[in-house]
Each structure stands twice: as structure tokens, then as C-alpha cells.
């Protein structure tokens, strides 16, 4: 039975570390992991975390052996998780957008972070549990059954604690910026200078959601405009300057749909909270300055409970100077 729970921990950790989309339900996996961990800890009598003074010689030896085996497993397990992440990513994306989705740099994602913490916390206990014949039962403290039972049910309070901490993080933690991860050049109208901008806003740090954007901004000295998203039409001035004098080209010729450059909502991360109602809008003012705004609603719970409206803005002048936007002002 204990070995089944160990395998369950491995399966859920693998799923958590993979690139399989969670659509905001990552917290369910975390709660499941928490439950499995508590089952394992109780089945092993919390041996891996007990002080040496309360253990007999055999238990102390088993605990120390579990830490040695656990230490050896850490490196292998981390390597396997990274392999799972890589392979599942290729499977999920079909190997197409492997480079482009790295545009928004969200650091070590919450999924990998939690999977790593899980490995560090539970591996010695897994070793103890796997050696079923050596494992100690939950009632090792004879004559102290009351305290043991109290510790048994108190452990389950960790689950609502995790839920409360996660909800508080998503609702109250300050918003953090996610900078660009890579910049690519190329494409765009021939008479304009263009640059890709990518960035985003993280809600709940790594345990919430990221509202990201990628946009290919061009400027020709008259206007700055978004290229590659036909839903954001080019200004007539941009179209006229793009073609020969006296010829106004059809927009589909100069502004083809290029979602890898200017996709809307493609860089959202919704592992632990759902991201919906994403809108991307541009406004070019009288001076030719582009105001590009991405708005979205982040909902940790169903039915929009405790949701937050998030807005990210990028402002680029007609000469390519960035006035506002995810750290690009310094470049």
C-alpha cells in the first residue's frame, strides 16, 4: 500500500513538472500531493522528520539510510523531471513554437518549483515507505496514543493552509513584472524599423498566472504601429509609405497575420489561476506614439470569485523610443 502511495506521489509530481496545460487547476495537483504526502508521513510514523532522541537504534539507522538514498535520488529525479518537461513540451507544442514561447521570462515556473520542493521534502520518506518491511507504523509512541492521534488530524490542516496561502498570494501579492526572455529581429514593412517586444505581469508570483504579451512594433518616423496582427489595422499613413508613391496597398499585403510575432494572449500562463477575457488594443495618438494595451481577468476560483483585472501597457514613440513597458525603457 505504501509503495502505491509512493508511485502516486511520483505520478502527480511528474504531471506537475510536465508541460501539460493545467488551465488554472494546478492547485488541485498541489492539494493532491499534499494529501499523498501526509498519508506517507503518517504511514512511516514521520520517521524522516523525527528527532534522534525519540528513535531506537534500528529506526535511527533506517532514517539515516533513507536520507542517503534520498540524496542520491535527488539528482536523478531532477534530471528525469527536466526530461519529462522537455519531452512533454515537444508533445504539447508539436515542436513548433519551442523558441517563441520563451519570449516572456517567468523564471523557474511555479510547477517546477513545487515539484522540486516536493522532491526535497518527501524523498527520504518515500525511501522509508518503499522499504515496507522496515517501515515504522504510525503508533510508535506507545502510551502516547492521544498525542499521536492529535498529530494525525492536525497534519491535515496543512491542506486548508496551502489553499489559503495560495488564494492570498493570488489576491493580495504585489504584481511582478516578467521581462522579455529573448528578442528576435526580421520581418515587417521594408520602410520601417521594427523590434519585437515581449513581457508580462505576474499575479501571485509563480503560483498564480502571468498575463503576457508579444508584439512586433514598427516605426517609420511618422507613426509607431503594431505589425502582424490584422485585427489592429495599420494607419493609412503607414500603408501609403509602405508602397510606391501614389499607391495604397491592400493591408493584407503589408500586415499579414503573424501570431508568432504579435499574437494576442499566446503568452499567458494559467497554471494556478485561469486567465480569461484577454484583449489587445492599440491607440496611436496625434504625435504618432503607440499605446499598446493588453487586458485580462485572472480568476483563481470558478465563477470569477476573487478575480483581478490586469492591464499591461507598452508605449513606443514614432522614433522607437519606449516610454513605458516592462523594462524596455532602459534599452
Amino acid at each position, binding site marked *: 500500500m505504501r509503495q502505491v502511495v509512493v508511485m502516486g506521489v511520483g505520478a502527480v509530481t511528474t504531471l506537475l513538472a510536465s508541460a501539460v496545460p493545467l488551465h488554472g487547476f494546478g492547485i488541485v495537483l498541489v492539494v493532491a500531493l499534499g494529501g499523498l504526502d501526509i498519508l506517507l508521513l503518517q504511514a512511516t510514523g514521520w520517521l524522516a522528520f523525527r528527532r534522534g532522541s525519540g528513535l531506537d537504534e534500528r529506526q535511527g*539507522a533506517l*532514517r*539515516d*539510510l533513507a*536520507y*542517503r538514498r*534520498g*540524496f542520491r535520488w*535527488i*539528482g536523478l529525479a531532477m534530471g528525469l523531471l527536466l526530461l519529462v518537461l522537455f519531452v512533454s513540451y515537444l508533445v504539447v507544442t508539436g515542436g513548433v513554437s519551442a523558441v517563441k514561447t520563451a519570449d516572456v*521570462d517567468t*523564471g*523557474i515556473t511555479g510547477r517546477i*518549483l513545487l515539484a*522540486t*520542493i516536493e522532491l*526535497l*521534502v518527501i524523498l*527520504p520518506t518515500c525511501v522509508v515507505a518503499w522499504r515496507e518491511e522496515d517501515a515504522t507504523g504510525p503508533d510508535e509512541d506507545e502510551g502516547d496514543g492521544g498525542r499521536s492521534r492529535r498529530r494525525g488530524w492536525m497534519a491535515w490542516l496543512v491542506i486548508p493552509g496551502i489553499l489559503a496561502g495560495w488564494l492570498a498570494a493570488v489576491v493580495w501579492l504585489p504584481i*511582478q*513584472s*516578467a*521581462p522579455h526572455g529573448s528578442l528576435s529581429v526580421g520581418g515587417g514593412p521594408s520602410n520601417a524599423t521594427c523590434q519585437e517586444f515581449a513581457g508580462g505581469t505576474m499575479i501571485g*508570483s*509563480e503560483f498564480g498566472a502571468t498575463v503576457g504579451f508579444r508584439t512586433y512594433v514598427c516605426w517609420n518616423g511618422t507613426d509607431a504601429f503594431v505589425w502582424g496582427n490584422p485585427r489592429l489595422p495599420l494607419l493609412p499613413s503607414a500603408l501609403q509609405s509602405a508602397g510606391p508613391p501614389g499607391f495604397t496597398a491592400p493591408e493584407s499585403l503589408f500586415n499579414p497575420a503573424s501570431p508568432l510575432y504579435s499574437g494576442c494572449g499566446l503568452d499567458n500562463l494559467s497554471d494556478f489561476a485561469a486567465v480569461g477575457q484577454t484583449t489587445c488594443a492599440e491607440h496611436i495618438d496625434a504625435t504618432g506614439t503607440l499605446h499598446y494595451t493588453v487586458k485580462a481577468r485572472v480568476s483563481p476560483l470558478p465563477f470569477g470569485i476573487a478575480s483581478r483585472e490586469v492591464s499591461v501597457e507598452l508605449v513606443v514613440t514614432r522614433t522607437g523610443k519606449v516610454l513605458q513597458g516592462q*523594462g524596455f525603457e532602459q534599452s
Partner: protein
Amino acid sequence: VSTSPADGRTRRTPGFATLPGTAGAGLLVGAFLALMLAPLVAGGSSDITTILPTIGYLMLAFVTWGVVAGVRREPGSWLGRRSVRRVVVAAIAADCAGVVASSAPGIQLGAIPLLLLLFLVLLNIALGRATERRATAPDVLVDERQEALRNHAHRLAYPIFAGIVGALLIADLVSSPSREWAEHVLGSGGFFVFLELLFVLPGMVLAVIEPAPPPPEPDLEGRGRTANVRLRIALALVFAVFALPVVASVSVVVLPLRIASQVTEGALGPEVSSTPSSPSAPGSPAAVLSCHDFSADVDAGWGVFAEVPVRAEWCFEGKVLNVENGCEGDILIGWSQSAVTVGPEKCTPVTAADGAMSVTWTETVTPELLPFLSRHVDVQVIIDKNGHVEVHT
């Protein structure tokens, strides 16, 4: 089973359990080297002379590793003393901290991180000898007391490792700058520190908690002080492994420059000129364009080296030499480097009245291991009016 004469404790006989691993590693390295060399030999490539020092160095490092692994600590040797072990552990910790600090974003320390990593390797060898690599030894090579001690060391090392990894993960959570720091450190020297902790931290803890060894018995004391031939060879090899990169770095500055490859020259044309810059009058027949190329390699250093591949192309339209711009046009010079930095470069083209072209490239070559040494390298390519090429260094 057998009994260790030093402490009287039971030691399980190792037998030949480690031989398959050693042979397997040797086969693996041999196959790796064969895979690297086979295409070069088959293709008759001149790159083989470039890669040979690297392969030789790798083989030396592998042999050194094997010899050092085979040397056991003599009872009573100074490296086994508790205080010495703790100093080694402290040095490893300080070295790791230095590697992490030098890996922070925006810090440019040249070859210092590399030197710290090399020093870390040296310290690891010392720690391995001081603890006789008991933390990772196969079960058959340790007795029950040692088994218990190393298990205890792992239990103490585990929370330390978890704490350090946890600190890194917290840095990923706190803010954007700390996230950038964590990513940058993990993507550079911090990764090696992570591997160091993963594989060596239990050994470090073991070196700290292991009791002082019992005083050697009189007959063993004499034997312990006796110079061990294998130990001397191992020390010499370790010294060579660390000294060779330094010597090779000095060679970049000391050895004379040489033109390594054979000069080749040949006609690419004739072709018909169609460029707008052609002097042919409109409507007249196109002039016959005869093009030639030239290549040479100028090398500085051996093992650690900078190679200057000189490539030049020029054309004759009739009897008129056409080399438009020596620095950006038909003459191309680039650097390939190995553990050296090159720059800043300066290019000086001179066109004589008779049409001959002279281009002089001036570079500063600095070995990364010894950044306080540098050398100015001048490469001059001269194409005279008849198309003859000379390279001067």
C-alpha cells in the same frame, strides 16, 4: 571478510566489484575519442592538429583521475587529520561562494570563475583523499561503522542542500531582480556549485564529523611516511593537469607566430563582369573578369591559441586589379579562438599609386587564464599590382 590492521574493525572484501566500472569508463572515453577523431582522420582535415592538444589533455586528465582514484590515504598522513579536513571543507565552501558571487549578473571577472572552478577540482581531489571517498564508496568497501557514519553525514547534508536550493527558489519568487539573479547564477557558475553540492556535500559533512583517526602503529607510521611511488606519480599528474593550461596560455605570448597552413592560389574565373562599378563603357563588350583567391592561417600559441584565417579574393578586369576595400570588401580576416580573448581590432588599408593594396590588421591577444599577459599581433596582407600576395606577421 578481512580485518583492517589499523583499527581492527571488520571490512568487507572489495573483490573486483570496481573493475567493471573502471573498464567501462575507459571504454566509454576510448569510444568518445574514436568518434571525435574518426571523421577528422577520414577526411584528412587539418583540424586534427588543432584538436590533438585538447584530446591529449583530456586523456591526461582521465589518466590522472584513474591514478588518483587508485591511491589510498596512508594511515597517519597529514591529509587525514581532522583539522586539515575541516580546512579543506571550509576552502570548498568559500570557493563555491566565490563562484556564485562571480556569476552574478553584470559582473565581468574574466578568467577568475574558471580559476575558481579549477581550484574547486583540486580541493575535491584533496577531500576525496582525506575521506577516502567513503561517502560515495560502494557498500562492499565500507565497514558497518563507516556505513553508519556516512548515512549520518547524508542526513546532516540533506537539510543543508535543501536549504540552499530553497534559498535559490525563494530568490525566484521574491522579485524580478532576484529572479533575474537566480536565473543568471543557475545558468552560469551556480550550476557547477549545484552539482558540487549534489555530489560532494555529504563528503564535506563526513569530513567534518568523522572523528580523528587513531594514532598509527609504529610499524605503520614508518610505512605511512615512506614515499609512495604511486602517490608521487599521482601528484605529478595532478600538477601537470593544472600547470599545462597555464603553460599553454603563456605560449600564446611567447611562441613565435607561424603561418600554419599551406598557401594556395588559383583562378576562379574567367567570368563576365556585370557589376555597376565596371569601368567598361556602356554598349561596349563586357570585360573578362579573372578572379583569384588566397588563404593562409596564422597561429599564435599552442593548445591555447588564436588562429587567424586570412582569406583574400581579387579580380582582374583585363589588366586592372580590383580590390575595393581591404577591410570590409574582398579581404576577409576572422579569428578563431581557444581560451583567449582578441581585441580591439584595428584595420589599416593602404592603396598604392600603382593599384597595389596593403591591409594591416592589429589585434591584442590575451589568454583568459592569464589576463595580465597580452600580445599585439600584426597581420599584413599585401596584394601587388600583378596579383601576387604576401602575408607578413
